[in-house]
C-alpha cells in the first residue's frame, strides 16, 4: 500500500494543465496543486457519483485532460458507471482509484469483500482498453509517465493506506477553502465558459 499524499506528489509532476478532481485525496492535493482554479475538490456531495461527475466534465471539455481520483467505496455504489465511461470512451479521461479497502470517513469499516475485489479487472471487463493496478509507490512512480502519455480512457487502481477518522463529522477540521459552488464557478471562469 502507498500513502495517498506521496502518490499525489508523484502525480503532480505529470499533471500538466489537466483539470483534476481529487476526490478523497482532496485534503492533500489542496496543498500541492499549482492550478487551484483547474481543480474540482468536491468533497462528498452524494456518495457514488464521483466517476460520473468526472465523465461529465470530460465530455464537456474534450480539449482538456480530466483526471479523477475516485475511491473504491464510491465506485462500489455505482459500478455500472464503468460501462458508461467505456461506452463514451473519452480520450481525455484518466480514472485513478484510491482503494483503501474501507470506509475511512465512517471509522474504517471494510467495504464489501474489501481485500479481494480486482477493480482493474472489472474496468477492463466493462470495456476500458487500458487498465493498471499498483500496490507500491515505486511501481506507480515508474509507470505514471507512460500512463499519462497515452490516450484515455484509462483506469488505474491503487492500494492506499486508509486515513481513518472517527470524529463526528461536525467536529472534523475543514480542509476545503472554497465552497463546492465556488469551486465550479472558479473552473468555469478559468475555462471561459461561465454559464
Amino acid at each position, binding site marked *: 500500500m502507498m500513502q495517498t499524499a506521496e502518490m499525489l506528489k508523484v502525480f503532480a509532476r505529470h499533471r500538466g494543465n489537466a483539470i483534476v478532481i481529487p476526490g478523497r485525496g482532496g485534503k492533500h492535493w489542496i496543498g500541492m496543486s499549482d492550478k487551484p482554479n483547474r481543480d474540482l475538490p468536491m468533497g462528498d456531495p*452524494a456518495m457514488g457519483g464521483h466517476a460520473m461527475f468526472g465523465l*461529465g466534465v470530460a465530455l464537456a*471539455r474534450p480539449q482538456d485532460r480530466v483526471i479523477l481520483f475516485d475511491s473504491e467505496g464510491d465506485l462500489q455504489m455505482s459500478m455500472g458507471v464503468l460501462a458508461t465511461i467505456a461506452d463514451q470512451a473519452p480520450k481525455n479521461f484518466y480514472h485513478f482509484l484510491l482503494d483503501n479497502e474501507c470506509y475511512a470517513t465512517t471509522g474504517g469499516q471494510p467495504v464489501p469483500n474489501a481485500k479481494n475485489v480486482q477493480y482493474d479487472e472489472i474496468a477492463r471487463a466493462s470495456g476500458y482498453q487500458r487498465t493498471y493496478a499498483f500496490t507500491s509507490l515505486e511501481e506507480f512512480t515508474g509507470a505514471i509517465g507512460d500512463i499519462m502519455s497515452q490516450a484515455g480512457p484509462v483506469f488505474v487502481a491503487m492500494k492506499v493506506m486508509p486515513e481513518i477518522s472517527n470524529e463526528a463529522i461536525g467536529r472534523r477540521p475543514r480542509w476545503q477553502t472554497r465552497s463546492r459552488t465556488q469551486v465550479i464557478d472558479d473552473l468555469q471562469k478559468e475555462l471561459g465558459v461561465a454559464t
Partner: protein
Amino acid sequence: MAQSQEGFLSPQTVLAELKKNAVTHVLWLPDSETNWLYTLMKAESSLTLVPVSREGLAFSGAAGVHAGGGKPVILIQNTGMLESGDSLRGWGLSLNVPVVMIVGYRGYTRHGVNTDTVADYTEPFLMAFGIKYFLVERDSDADRISIAFEESRKTRRPVAVLVGDEYHGFN
C-alpha cells in the same frame, strides 16, 4: 406517426425543444416511452447521448457537464427519479446546477385513477425537494419545456418536466 400529433406529445416536438434550448448532452436511462425519441436524438449531431445504468448517475453526470460549460438535460422515468433522491440533493440542488429533468410520468392519468403507485408519489416527491415542475401532455404544451429551461437558468436549480402521456408520449 401518420396521425395528427395534436392530441399527444410527439418525439419531434421534444427534440425541437432540446435544440431550441441549446442542450449539448442528454443523460438518460430509457423507459418504455422514449424509444422514438432515442432514435431521433441519435441522429441529431448536436447532442451527445450518455446512457446511465442508474438514474442517480444522471445527476452527477449533469453536474460534471455543467461544470465543464455544457448544457445537460436529464431524461428518466419517475421511478428512477424517486431512486435518485440523494443524488438530486447532492449533485443537483447543493451545487446550483441548472438542469431540466424530463421525467416520464409512469402511471399517471388525467382521467380516472392512477395505474401505478409511483404516480401518486411523483409530485409529492418534487414538492418535498422544492423542485418546480411543469406537466406536459401534448404538443400544444411544448412551450412549457422552454419555460422550464428558462426557470432552471434563472434559479440555477433543477426543474422538472413531467411527461404525462404514458401510452402515446414519444412513441
